[in-house]
């Protein structure tokens, strides 16, 4: 079972964000929706995989589908921030169920080139066909009436992207974890700690009211940069003590 938590919309240009913590992989999946139109996007959904017997199941994604149905949402986009190393993405499964397009960042082409070398599998990863849309830095689209902006934020992978939905919700994936657990790692093929540092600076430069939804939890931010970090830290303790999220290990 996933643990769910919702951050409500604050006004007309503000999304409702629900995070679903998936305990086997320690990742958080998100549903972000426009309250005015009930249009939604799913971000970084998990397809459960048990490595001991190489078997898959759709428990986590089905919980998201149940949430979508219960809230009467209509999914416009199935999004990933990067090709994850710790879990399978559920995007193709969700696309089959919902009919919405699946998308990721365009630099997944370069990541595919690295990994097709490591797997000695030339041509195996045809990302232009596997995904319906590959977003470039600065691309814009809509979820209902909410504008979404794509910000390239590499470091953990060379092609990770942040989705900024409405005026105050940013999905920052595996960049900024909470201050007392640090950042994501940057040592996978294509990762780079210096690049990650710059991506985190760009995220911290977003407006101070921005809610940052990371791979581990979601938090409201406030105050100066230092104040923001303290706020995140406080928030995280609230999550671990009251919401049942385990301590992230990074």
């Amino acid at each position: 079972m996933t643990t769910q938590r919702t951050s409500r919309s604050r006004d007309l240009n503000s999304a409702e964000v629900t995070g679903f913590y998936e305990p086997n992989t320690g990742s958080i999946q998100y549903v972000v929706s426009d309250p005015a139109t009930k249009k939604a996007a799913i971000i970084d959904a998990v397809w459960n995989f048990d490595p001991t017997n190489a078997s898959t199941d759709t428990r986590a994604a089905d919980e998201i589908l149940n949430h979508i149905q219960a809230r009467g949402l209509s999914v416009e986009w199935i999004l990933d921030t990067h090709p994850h190393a710790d879990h399978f993405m559920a995007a193709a499964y969700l696309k089959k169920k919902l009919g919405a397009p699946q998308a990721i960042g365009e630099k997944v082409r370069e990541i595919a080139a690295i990994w097709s070398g490591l797997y000695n599998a030339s041509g195996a990863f045809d990302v232009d066909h596997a995904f319906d849309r590959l977003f470039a830095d600065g691309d814009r689209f809509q979820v209902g009436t909410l504008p979404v902006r794509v910000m390239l934020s590499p470091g953990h992978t060379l092609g990770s992207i942040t989705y900024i939905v409405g005026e105050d919700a940013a999905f920052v994936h595996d960049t900024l974890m909470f201050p007392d657990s640090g950042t994501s790692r940057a040592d996978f093929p294509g990762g780079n700690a210096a690049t990650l540092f710059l991506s985190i600076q760009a995220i911290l430069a977003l407006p101070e009211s921005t809610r940052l939804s990371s791979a581990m939890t979601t938090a409201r931010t406030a105050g100066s940069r230092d104040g923001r970090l303290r706020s995140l830290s406080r928030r995280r303790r609230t999550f671990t003590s009251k919401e049942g999220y385990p301590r992230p290990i990074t």
Partner: protein
Amino acid sequence: MKVRNDRDKSLPLPARMLHALQVNLRGGRLPEPESDGHSYFKIPANRL
């Protein structure tokens, strides 16, 4: 950055990584089924 790099050197790779990338770079799909109708993963030895 030094802290990050030093820490990374001490971390094991994620248990699902070598399975996950070959699925995720197909958009969340298993490798094409082989002649018996089943999909098989390909795991490189001593590459990482």
